[in-house]
């Protein structure tokens, strides 16, 4: 689905992403893990078109899309969420979602002025879809609240809700679980799985919660210092000593040996 081929990005001397290559397979839920500063979010920004890489290629469905702007990638079915929620603070949750659907004729000013009946009919459909998504996410009680007033966890759900307002093919989720309570997190995982099996969404998920990764993801890609350290099933990754080194610093395996 997406091939990331030898992608690098430097920020004034810091190698955020350093020759990173892996593949996000169609129909799978790929986990992307790694210690803080491993370059996961930068890589997401590159794949989603927010940052242009210094070198390397991103291929979506056989077509090279390196450096294409986010709005164009959106229309090719690539949608992303943000680690830090990016809500429209002074707009309602409902309006936040209603912005998303593509092809709204009322987004053309002349249509908005001259074809109000058609625009209104479309608005009803968009509204219905937004209501469904809100119900799915159990946010009905805050549908008309300004998004800026939502809790951190609710904003994360809003981020996920956005991806459900369009017919996405591949969704990049940047820490969807952070700040979401346990009950809701279970529901979130369930909905990701349902979108995957029922609607055929391909996912790539950055997450620090290993339970979430273990429950959902296969394969799991581990990044450290801008590169892919290893990839494979969760069990394979868990057993890898390099991964422990990357997470816990030099000598972690040695200390573990000593502790035995």
């Amino acid at each position, binding site marked *: 689905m997406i091939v990331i081929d030898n992608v690098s990005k430097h920020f004034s001397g810091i190698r955020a992403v350093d020759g990173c290559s892996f593949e996000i397979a169609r129909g799978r839920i790929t986990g992307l893990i790694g210690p803080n500063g491993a370059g996961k979010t930068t890589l997401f920004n590159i794949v989603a078109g927010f940052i242009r890489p210094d070198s390397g290629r991103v291929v979506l469905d056989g077509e090279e899309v390196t450096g294409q702007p986010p*709005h164009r990638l959106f229309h090719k079915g690539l949608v992303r969420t943000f680690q830090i929620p*990016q809500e429209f603070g002074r707009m309602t949750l409902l309006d936040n979602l209603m912005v998303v659907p593509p092809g709204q004729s009322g987004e053309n*000013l002349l249509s908005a002025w001259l074809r109000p009946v058609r625009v209104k009919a479309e608005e009803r459909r968009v509204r219905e879809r937004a209501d469904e998504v809100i119900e799915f996410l159990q946010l009905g009680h805050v549908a008309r609240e*300004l998004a800026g007033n939502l809790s951190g966890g609710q904003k994360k759900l809003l981020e996920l809700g956005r991806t459900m307002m369009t017919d996405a093919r591949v969704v990049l989720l940047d820490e969807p679980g952070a700040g979401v309570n346990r009950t809701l997190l279970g529901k979130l995982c369930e909905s990701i799985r349902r979108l995957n099996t029922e609607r055929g969404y391909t996912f790539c998920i950055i997450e620090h919660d290993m339970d979430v990764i273990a429950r959902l993801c296969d394969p799991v890609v581990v990044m450290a210092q801008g590169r892919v350290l290893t990839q494979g099933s969760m069990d394979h990754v868990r057993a890898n000593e390099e991964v422990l080194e990357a997470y816990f610093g030099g000598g972690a395996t040695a200390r573990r040996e000593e502790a035995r």
Partner: protein
Amino acid sequence: MEGLIGYGVFFLTMAGIYAVLTLGLNLQWGFTGQFNIGVAGFFAVGAYTSAIVTAPDSAAHLGGFGLPFPIGVAAAAVMSGLAAVAVGWGTMRLRTDYLAIATIGIAEIIRHVLKNEDWLTNGVRGIPGIPRPVETELGLLGVVIGFVILVYLLIERARKSPWGRVLRAIRENENAVMASGKDVADFRLQAFVVGSAIMGLGGALYAHFTAFISPEAFDPLYGTFLIWVMLIAGGSGNNKGALLGTLVIWIVWSGSEILTSRLPVEYVTQAGALRVLLIGVILQVILLYRPEGLLPEERPRLGRPGDG
């Protein structure tokens, strides 16, 4: 009594012209968050365009086309819109404060061109004899009010449409709009051009009302600052607020002129500076105690899902 009515008509006509300008700025700042402090530039382009298109033949400036009023107004909106396309082409990628610097510079360039390109504008001597669309002062007021209503309805419909929703989303968070598949630069340019075209329309109304224009009228104080205060006082993002703010600030501004004009001649100029100070103080008070303006952007009703 007659004098009072005459003044009332003058007062309301000017307020109506300012209302058109404020509505144009509301589209840019109130909806989209574009910090245009070059309102005077687009205001001037509109006024001069309509003046040149409709004024009788003159050796002093370009023009003598003597075309009818509606063509002048349409040409004014188109020219200001084109000016905005030219400006926007280079500046639409700039974020708020950089756009502010760019637009204030451009408005000053426009003012200096008007002042110095005699063949085009007759320089500081200005363009006289701009025809009026109707004979009476009252009729002119009617024409201006008609345009205010038209512009208000158009902008209000735009605000409630998906188009307006995208603009407000851009104001709130550009990244998320990009991630929602919208071409942010394109929408920003549209808002900038439509808002500026409306300012040009306001300029045309001004030219036909005063029948004489010179570069002085498009000084940043009258052409930009007052309009900003009107919008902020009334409530950015709210079109009714823009109208109310225009009226309130125009009452303060012209009311204080009546007071200061009664002073002895030697104090009048100094008092003029005090009027600006007064407007500045009002702005400060509003920003401190009512930063969202008299009529804040409409808040959603807090209610159950599915209603409304």
